[in-house]
């Protein structure tokens, strides 16, 4: 069974870490990740860029682009995609295509800062 672990934390707080503190946390996480990777159990790992870099596509008709992260609490996270795009417009185009195939709800579009593809199939 594959599990997705979705990371939540206070962005202001994490953003207040010094470079050294950030590096310390990342190094500690790397140890855990390394162990899982050796066992062939680690899939993709991504660290997202801050929510200030996010845009949200509301899958209305016509679809509406909003600045910032997805803010509704009435809906739940049901899945995610990682797509390789030249820029935000290209990412929004992908989101629109997906949205046309499955209207309703929203896509939050967040650039990925760190990405490791992992090795789970």
């Amino acid at each position, binding site marked *: 069974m594959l599990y997705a672990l979705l990371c939540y934390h*206070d*962005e*202001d*707080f994490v*953003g*207040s*870490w*010094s*470079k050294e*503190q950030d590096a*310390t*946390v990342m190094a500690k996480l790397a140890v855990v990740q390394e162990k899982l990777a050796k066992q062939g159990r680690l899939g993709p790992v991504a660290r997202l*860029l*801050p*929510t*200030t*870099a996010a*845009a949200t596509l509301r899958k209305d008709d016509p679809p509406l*682009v*909003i*600045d*910032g992260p997805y803010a509704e609490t009435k809906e739940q996270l049901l899945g995610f995609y990682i797509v390789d795009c030249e*820029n*935000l*417009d290209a990412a929004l185009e992908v989101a629109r295509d997906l949205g046309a195939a499955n209207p309703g709800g929203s896509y939050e579009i967040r*650039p*990925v*800062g*760190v990405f490791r593809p992992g090795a789970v199939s």
Partner: protein
Amino acid sequence: MTDAAWIDAALTSARPQAVGALLRYFRDLDTAEEAFQNACLRALKSWPQNGPPRDPAAWLIMVGRNAAIDEVRRNRKQEPLPEDEAISDLDDAEDEIAERLDGSHYRDDILRLLFICCHKELPATQQIALALRVVSGLSVKQIARAFLVGEAAMEQRITRAKARVAQASVPFETPGAVERSERLTAVAAMIYLIFNEGYSASGETADLRMPLSEEAIRLARLLLRLFPSEPEIMGLTALLLLQHARAAARYDADGALILLEDQDRSLWNKTMIAEGLALIDKAMRHRRSGPYQIQAAIAALHARAASSDETDWTQIDLLYGALEVVQPSPVVTLNRAVAVSKARGAQAALEMIEPLAGRLSNYFYFFGVRGALLMQLDRNEEAHVAFDRAIALAHSSAEAAHIRMQIDRLKRDSAKNSAKDRAGIRGAAKRP
């Protein structure tokens, strides 16, 4: 991360919101700061024992406010302070105050706090010092170090700035749309000043001042989270990120400045560039251009180019042209001339900067650029004069060292050329 480091980060991140709310409550900066300080002291005692509160900012506002009120009462009636236990169980009260402090309040509290620091009558250095002290919570010692002045002098500077601000009577009502937008513009300018204090530091002080650039980025992100749909704030944040991404490549081992075109681009911070590019993409969608967005777009073209030769100079020339329209300044024209020299040649660039000579007669960079352009046109003697003037005007040894390097190159070239002249080949090579 240790408990102490964790609490430190939590206090830092809660500070703008907490001090902003306390300022709204007490309407006096010193009282607000003192209340926050008291709350922090109590947090250091209470959090390790009782665990961190769910909402540190709300906790600090609540405790800070109560502590200050107690202080007033104590002075009035000599009443004893409540025991620490009385404030350790704040969960219910915390929920209540968190609910009252809705998003719009947070937003205007933090904006007001930033705004009072950029009071028009305060000189730029005082604005920056005040913001770093009050909003960012840097110690006077840290700020003094970054500004390369003594602690006492900085203390005095901040005290003076605070007195000025206290007289200014900033309105505490929720600002209207126009007022809010004016505040936002002033605050953005101040954040850019903070950034430049760090960014323009020369080699030997760069390490000391680098934190200023990082703090400016933190404040810009904070502002953008409060105003997520403002394209100029996206532009500002993008600009800071794209410039700061080059930090590791800007100085050589001796602390001498390395020009953009000579930088090792593999040292550029790719994550920061990605964030900057994402932000400028977002901003452009609004089609409401402004100086920060244009400058960020220029920085983005540099960031996207794998090497200096692959830079889209024509586009950069056009963007500087747009910047000249919205923010006319001889310095902008000078920067444009550098792009023009790449896109259309040194002669065109030189013609563009000649009219600026009067207004930029004391500007280091003007003579540096002029010298470089003259050098490209083989007008070496004139170039030498320009470089000498640049050295005389340099603010830092890194700047001076950079110009000296150019002069050395000139001397080498002219030595080579005079040898060639003697051999009678120079004219044939240069003027077909």
